[in-house]
């Protein structure tokens, strides 16, 4: 079946290439492009850090690979992607998943004002709160929709999109039909004032098989907890981006009709409508920028079915409203979005003093907070209250300053304070609330125009979780081909979760890594020996709990 499909797509592609040559008497060979990416891991069992999943016990190695091919000719775009997972923990860290085949394929025709796609496609409406179909390989997510997609632009400023299809799940499709329509228009009121309003409606219909499971679960509830679940749910939004001089204000209001969703407090489904509101206001001028973002979520879980949880079957995209950190220890604690109910606020300020312009000095400040509904008040949000508060799901204060001392030498210094409800985010009952203070720094020195050395370091101090850590990294770069680094993250003091029992001394644990990369034009090969602590991995705004890793990791990526 798959072979036939690939053959058909290639044949259609060749047919149009030939047609173009014959018809126009021009040689239109089209444009061919693609990319390849692979990650290969070799596992070294290490029970001292909890690296004991199935790959450490049995399979000992795993490979993930993706080959994407694009061919464009005469307004047509043919896309095929081959995916391979061998003993892979990527899709489920507790599983060794093996399967390969056609991961996606599509044919798109671009016309004057319209484009039509059949096959798999990725798209989103507004911020994605009502619909986002996307891929994030690092997290093993692929929410492609297989179906038909139309984009129509009747005028330069108007876009109308519509689609229907089924969501991809591994190499299969989920049986629930998803369809939607979106329209937006750009108004230029004056040179410095514009509006960009839009609206969308998305519908999902549950299949009979899944409904049978939902209904039989409900039928096992006590009589007063039973309800009639809905096959159809409609999610709709209105939104607008207003730009006035240096200000930008975005507002999105989304609601959904009642459907069965799981109440995490009692672990039972309930028939609930939902709403989510998102607004952001930003101002930027030379040397100064501020952005404030607020999001309100009230029972707004929109997935292929209420039986899906975590990162499965997501139709609505509700990324964490908190800052995505890069440094290893700063990114140790991350906040999942709470679909059942959450108030989230983030403020980001950057400032470049004129007086220090020649040093490229920049101050960045970020703070974010997430609370349950009804708790966005009082001591929970009091910015100078530093007590543990489980209703303060997450709070971060982040401050950094960058300064270039000379053309060859620059430094970054910063401080981070995290409040983290670990029991909620990592589903670990009875672990204490985490308060972590981290100081961090980075220095880069250019030895020659092609050689540079970068040193980074962080010290995270906490009494909770696994305790305090120090992380250091030295990186040596020889542009444009080579990069080498050595780092070590050391668990210097135990926390509430790893305190030795019976007065035994704490054994210091090292999470060291050795890394090398070679880059040749569009191709990059990396090799590393890594010991990685368990934690929450967040990429692109979506997070998942990942077990510890110990072993060798080889990657190769190339574009052509």
């Amino acid at each position: 079946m798959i072979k036939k499909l690939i053959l058909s797509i290639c044949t259609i592609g060749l047919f149009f290439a030939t047609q173009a040559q014959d018809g126009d008497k021009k040689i239109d060979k089209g444009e061919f492009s693609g990319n390849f990416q692979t990650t290969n891991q070799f596992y070294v069992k290490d029970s001292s850090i909890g690296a004991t999943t199935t790959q450490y016990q049995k399979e000992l190695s795993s490979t993930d690979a993706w080959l994407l091919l694009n061919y464009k000719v005469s307004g047509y775009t043919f896309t095929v992607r081959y995916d391979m997972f061998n003993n892979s923990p990527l899709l489920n860290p507790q599983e060794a998943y093996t399967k390969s085949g056609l991961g996606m394929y599509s044919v798109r025709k671009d016309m004057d004002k319209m484009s039509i796609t059949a096959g798999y496609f990725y798209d989103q409406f507004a911020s994605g709160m009502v619909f986002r179909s996307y891929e994030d390989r690092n997290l093993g997510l692929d929410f492609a929709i297989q179906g038909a997609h139309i984009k129509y632009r009747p005028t330069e400023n108007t876009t109308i999109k519509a689609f229907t299809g089924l969501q991809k799940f591994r190499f299969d499709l989920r049986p629930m039909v998803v369809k939607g329509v979106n329209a937006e228009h750009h108004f230029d009121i004056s040179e410095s004032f514009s509006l960009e309003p839009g609206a969308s409606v998305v519908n999902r219909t549950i299949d009979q098989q899944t409904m049978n499971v939902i209904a039989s679960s409900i039928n096992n509830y006590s009589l007063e907890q039973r309800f009639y679940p809905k096959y159809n749910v409609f999610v709709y939004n209105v939104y607008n981006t207003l730009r006035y001089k240096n200000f930008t204000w975005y507002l999105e209001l989304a609601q959904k009709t009642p459907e069965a969703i799981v109440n995490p407090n009692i672990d039972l489904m309930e028939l609930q409508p939902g709403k989510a509101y998102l607004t952001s206001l930003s101002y930027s001028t030379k040397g100064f920028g501020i952005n404030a973002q607020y999001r309100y979520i009230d029972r707004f879980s929109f997935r292929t079915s209420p039986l899906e949880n975590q990162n499965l079957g997501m139709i609505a995209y509700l990324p964490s409203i908190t800052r995505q950190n890069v440094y290893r220890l700063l990114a140790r604690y991350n906040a999942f979005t709470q679909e059942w109910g959450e108030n989230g606020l983030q403020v980001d300020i950057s400032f470049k003093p004129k007086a220090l312009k020649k040093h490229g000095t920049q101050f960045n400040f970020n703070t974010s907070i997430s609370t349950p509904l009804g708790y966005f008040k009082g001591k929970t949000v009091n910015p100078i209250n530093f007590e543990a508060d489980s209703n303060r799901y997450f709070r971060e204060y982040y401050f950094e300053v960058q300064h270039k001392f000379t053309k060859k030498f620059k430094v970054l210094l910063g401080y981070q304070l995290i409040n983290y409800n670990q029991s909620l985010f990592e589903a670990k009952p009875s672990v204490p609330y985490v308060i972590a203070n981290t100081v961090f720094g980075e220095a880069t020195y250019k030895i020659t125009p092609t050689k540079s050395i970068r040193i980074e370091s962080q010290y995270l101090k906490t009494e909770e979780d696994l305790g305090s850590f120090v992380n250091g990294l030295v990186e040596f770069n020889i542009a444009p081909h080579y990069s080498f680094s050595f780092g070590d993250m050391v668990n210097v003091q135990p926390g509430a979760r790893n305190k030795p029992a019976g007065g035994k001394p704490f054994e210091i644990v090292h999470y060291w890594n050795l890394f090398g990369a070679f880059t040749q034009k569009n191709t990059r090969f990396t090799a590393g020996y890594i010991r990685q602590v368990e934690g929450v991995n967040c990429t692109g705004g979506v997070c998942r709990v990942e077990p510890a890793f110990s072993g060798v990791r080889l990657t190769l990526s190339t574009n052509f």
Partner: protein
Amino acid sequence: MSACEEEPPYINYAPEATIGDTTFILLPAPTPQPKNVLIEEVTGVRCPNCPKAQVEAKTISENNPGRINIVTIHPLNKLNALTRPFSQAVGDKHTSLFDFRTEPGAQIFEMVGLSGSLPIGNVNRKLFASETSRNIDYQKWSAYVSTEIIQPTPVNINISAKNLSDSIEIEVTLTYTEVVADSNFLTLMILESDMEDVQESKDVNGSVIYVENYIHNHVLRGVVTGYYGDLLKASYEPGRVFYKKYRIKRDSKWNAKNLDALAIVHLNTTKKNVIHSKDAKVQ
């Protein structure tokens, strides 16, 4: 707007029929019972070919005495042209005495696998290797029964039922003799036999006839637990006993003397397979 309203799935709002419910371990585990095979045949009074399927089910039962449980399902609001009772008021030549159709029957038909034609039926609600549906043609039942009947069952069923003044009381004891990993469910049905009523059929020449004194047996009259079954909430290990006692109001249209209670232990509504079944006359 009301035309746009969707029809919800079956949710049981009937008052709880369970009056006794307990579980415990009793060792040593008893000797396993031989596995009974369930045949659920979906039928209709206007279906002229359906009596043949009922004859086939009866023959299979007679060839395997005490090992076959037959349930005759007349689904409500499914394939109405074949299942609707006769009525002279709408121009039929006959009027049915009974309406055998039930909502749980329709739910079971839908859960196991809808079909556009009758007769159809399943053997232990199982999807056999060479089949595309669990509900299959009656001519295949015999072969699949012979493969199912030699399988062991990990659970013993003991059932008894009695008529009270206006209700039926059923006691079921399930005893596991092996470890089972999948979730198990218990469905309890009330069946009625010896009901004389009109049935469309065919004579030896293949012409359609109406048999006014046709005897309808094993007709599904009600489901005590809900068609999806009651989840058996404990680990399934040798010696595990579930004792359940149910009481339901007896429908005035049922003949108290001709009722049977049938207990079915099965997997969930996705996996569906029946593990064992056992019936008892309602005394």
